[in-house]
C-alpha cells in the first residue's frame, strides 16, 4: 500500500458523502424525529412518542391509500411492462427479417418517437388533459361521444368503483413510452447471431420472444419492475389534479402522498404527515428489497 493512498480516496469521497449526508440522510433522520412529535409547522415541536403511529392505525383514509398502493403495485408494473414489451418487440424485432438483420414493423422509427411523447409532458399537464378526456358530461372526450351516440355516460372519475382504474390507466399511458425505449435498448444489445441461429432452426416469432428475447432481457425487466413499483407508491401529481375532491370520490383514489400533503399543508399536522412519510419509506424499501431478492437469477453472460 503506497503512502498517500488514503488522502487520495478521502479527497474523492468527501464531497459526495457530505452532500449525501446533508441532503439525504439528515432530512430522513429529521422526518423520523418529526414523526414522533406533534409539530404543527410553526413553533418548535413537542414530543409525542408513538401517538402519530397509533393514530395512523385507526385512520380509514390511510388504509384506503395503502389498499390503492397494493392494487397499483400489482397492476401498474404488469400492465405497463406487458404493453411496453409488446411494442418494443414489434418496433425492434417484429418485422420480417431481411437477410440477416432483424427489424421492426413498418414505420417503427416513427412510432418509437411517438411512443415517447407522453414522457415529455409534465404530469400535471397530463392530469389536466385527462380531466378533459374523463369529463362526465357532453364536453368530455369519452362521455361526450357516448352521449352523442345515445348511450349513458360512464362518469369515469365520479364512479367510486371506476375512479381508481381510470387513474391507473393514466399512469400506464404515461409510463409506457419510457419502457418501450428502455426495452428497445435492451433488445438492441442482444447479439443478432442468437436470433439468426434461432430463426435458422425454424423458431416462430412467439418462441423468439419467449425463449430468446425475454430471458436475455431479464435484467432490464427487473429494473423496470422496481422503477414501476416505486412509481406505484407515488401517483401524487395525477391524483391531486385529476380526481374529484383530491383523492375522491370518498377517498376512493387517494394515495399516501396525497394524504401526506393534506395532513401537512392543509391540516397543519406535520408530525402526523411525517409518520405517514416514514410508513411510505418502509413500504418502498421493503418492496425494492423484496423484488431484487425474488427476481434474483443468474445473469446470462453473453
Amino acid at each position, binding site marked *: 500500500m503506497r503512502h498517500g493512498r488514503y488522502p487520495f480516496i478521502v479527497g474523492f469521497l468527501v464531497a459526495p458523502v457530505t452532500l449525501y449526508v446533508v441532503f439525504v440522510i439528515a*432530512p*430522513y433522520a429529521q422526518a423520523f424525529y418529526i414523526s414522533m412529535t406533534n409539530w404543527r409547522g410553526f413553533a418548535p415541536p413537542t414530543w409525542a412518542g408513538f401517538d402519530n403511529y397509533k393514530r395512523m392505525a385507526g385512520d380509514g383514509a390511510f388504509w384506503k391509500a395503502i389498499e390503492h398502493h397494493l392494487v397499483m403495485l400489482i397492476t401498474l408494473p404488469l400492465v405497463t411492462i406487458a404493453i411496453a414489451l409488446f411494442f418494443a418487440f414489434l418496433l425492434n424485432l417484429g418485422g420480417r427479417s431481411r437477410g440477416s438483420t432483424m427489424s421492426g414493423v413498418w414505420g417503427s422509427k416513427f412510432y418509437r418517437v411517438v411512443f415517447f411523447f407522453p414522457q415529455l409532458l409534465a404530469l400535471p399537464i397530463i392530469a389536466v388533459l385527462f380531466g378533459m378526456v374523463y369529463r362526465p*358530461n357532453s364536453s368530455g372526450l369519452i362521455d361526450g361521444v357516448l352521449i352523442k351516440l345515445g348511450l349513458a355516460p360512464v362518469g369515469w372519475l365520479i364512479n367510486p368503483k371506476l375512479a381508481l382504474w381510470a387513474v391507473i390507466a393514466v399512469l400506464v399511458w404515461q409510463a409506457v413510452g419510457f419502457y418501450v425505449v428502455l426495452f428497445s435498448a435492451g433488445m438492441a444489445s442482444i447479439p443478432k447471431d442468437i436470433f439468426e441461429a434461432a430463426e435458422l432452426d425454424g423458431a416462430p416469432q412467439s418462441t423468439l420472444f419467449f425463449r430468446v428475447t425475454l430471458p436475455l432481457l431479464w435484467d432490464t425487466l427487473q429494473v423496470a419492475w422496481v422503477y414501476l413499483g416505486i412509481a406505484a407508491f407515488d401517483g401524487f401529481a395525477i391524483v391531486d389534479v385529476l380526481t374529484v375532491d383530491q383523492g375522491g*370520490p370518498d377517498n376512493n383514489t387517494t394515495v399516501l402522498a396525497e394524504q401526506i400533503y393534506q395532513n401537512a399543508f*392543509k391540516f397543519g399536522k406535520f408530525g402526523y404527515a411525517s409518520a405517514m412519510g416514514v410508513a411510505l419509506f418502509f413500504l418502498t424499501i421493503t418492496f425494492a428489497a423484496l423484488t431484487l431478492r425474488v427476481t434474483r437469477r443468474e445473469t446470462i453472460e453473453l
Partner: protein
Amino acid sequence: MSEARVAGTPADPTPNLDRRSLLRNAAAVGLVALPGAGLLSACATSGSGDSGTSGGGKKTATNPLGVKEDAPLDVVIFNGGYGDKYATEAHEPLYKKEFPKATVKHEAVTDVGKTLQPRFSSGTSVPDVVDNSGSGLMDFGALVADGQMADLTPLWDAPSVDDPNKKVRDIVVPGTVDTGSFNGKPFVLYYVSTVFGLWYSGKLFKDKGWTVPTTWDDFLKLLDDIKKAGLTPFGYAGANAAYYMWNVILTSAAKIGGPDVLKAIDNLEDGAWTAPAVKQAATAWAEVGAKYTDKAFLGLKHTDVQLQQNQYKVALYPSGDWLPNEQSKDTPSDFQYQMMPTPSVTSSDKLPANAVRATAGEGFFVPAHAPNKAGGLEYLRQMLSKKGANEFTKLTKSPAVTVGSAEGVDLGPGVNSSQAALKAAGSNVFNIFFDGWYAELDKECRTATNELFFNGGTADAFCTRMQKKADAIKADSSVTKFHR
C-alpha cells in the same frame, strides 16, 4: 374553508393547476415523504427566532399604536379573487401617507402557505401583515396553537382614523371581532363582509314567471317547474367546491333547530351532528340531490357549473356573494344575479325563512414575531378607515367590514340583493366556524356531502360519519380545541 378560504374562493377553491405550483406541491410533499428530495439542510423545525418588537415609536394622537416612523413594513397579499390592487393602490399609499419615511414592501402571492410557512417556522423574514387566504392558506388552528399571531386587542381598542372618539371596534359591522377570535382572543381581521344563499338569474325567473319560495313545498314545486322547463334545477361543483353545499345543509339545520345547532357542531359536542335538525336538513337536501341535479356535477369544478348557470342551463346555485364579481366576465349583461335565502324546511322552523349565514372573509393578521408589529396593526387600522374600506369596496365590488364602506359605490344587482337580504334578516344572522378551526372536519364534510348529494347517500350515514370524525378530532390531543 375557513372564512378566509370562503372569501379567497372566488378565484380559486382548489390548488392552482398550473404546472409550477403543482411541482412545488410535489416537492413540498417530498420534503415530508421522501426527505431526500428536499434541499433542507438546516433543521426543518428550527424554532422561530424572537424578533418581535412592538414598534418603538412614540404614541401620539395620530399614531396611537406607536409606530416607528421609518421602520419598513412588509405586506403579503393573497392575489386571488380580489386581486392585489386594493393593497397597492389604496391601503399601502394610505400607510405611506402617514409614515412617508417608511418603505412598504409589497408581495403578492397565490399560495400563502408555501411562501410563508418556511419563513414562519425558521423565524426569518417574517412579514408584518399577512392576508392569509386562498386554498393554500396556513391553517389558522395551527397558527393559533403555535402562538404565531399577534393579539389584535390594541387595534380594536385604538381610536379609529376618521373619528378619534370612536374605537376601531365600534366602526365595523357587528360580529367582525368575534369572527376573527379564537377562544375569545381576537387574532384575525376578516375584512370582507360575506352573505351566503342560493343564486339565480333575475331575468330567467322573470321571463319564466318563477317566484322565490319561502317554504319547502314551494321550493320543491319550483324545482319541478324548472325541471319541466328543461333546466337542471339545482347544482354545485363536487370536484372542488363541495363546501358550498354543506354550507347550505347546515344553514337549513340552523333554521330548523336554531343557531345553537351550529354552536354545538363548532364546539365538537357529543351528538351535535346526529341532532334531529341536522338529520332533517340532510334528508331534505338528499332528496334534492336525488331528483333535481345533474350527477355529472360531481366531476366538475366550480367555474364549470357557474358558467353553466350563466348559460341558463342551471337555475339555482349555492354560493357566497363573491359570485357575481367572480363571474362578471361570463355573465350576460341582462342576467341580473339575485340571491335568495334557503327556504324553511318545516313549518315549525326556529328561524324564519329570511335568516341567512353571514360572515366576514379574507383573514388578515399580524404575525406575533413581526419585526414591525405596531406597523402591521397600524396598516390594519388604515384598512378599516373610511377611505381604505371605501377604496377596497370600489375596486373589488365587495363591501369591506367598515360600516358604510359601500357609500357611493354601485355594487351591482347581485351584491345589492345579498346586502338587502342581510338587512331583511335583521338579527337572524348566524355563522359557522368549525371549518376554520378544524380543516380535517371541513374535508370530511365535503366528502360526506358529495356522497349524500350525488352518490345516493342517506342522511343517517352523513350524520354518523360526521359525528365519528368530530369525535375523533375531539379525542385527538394534538389538535388545539376552540370554543365559542
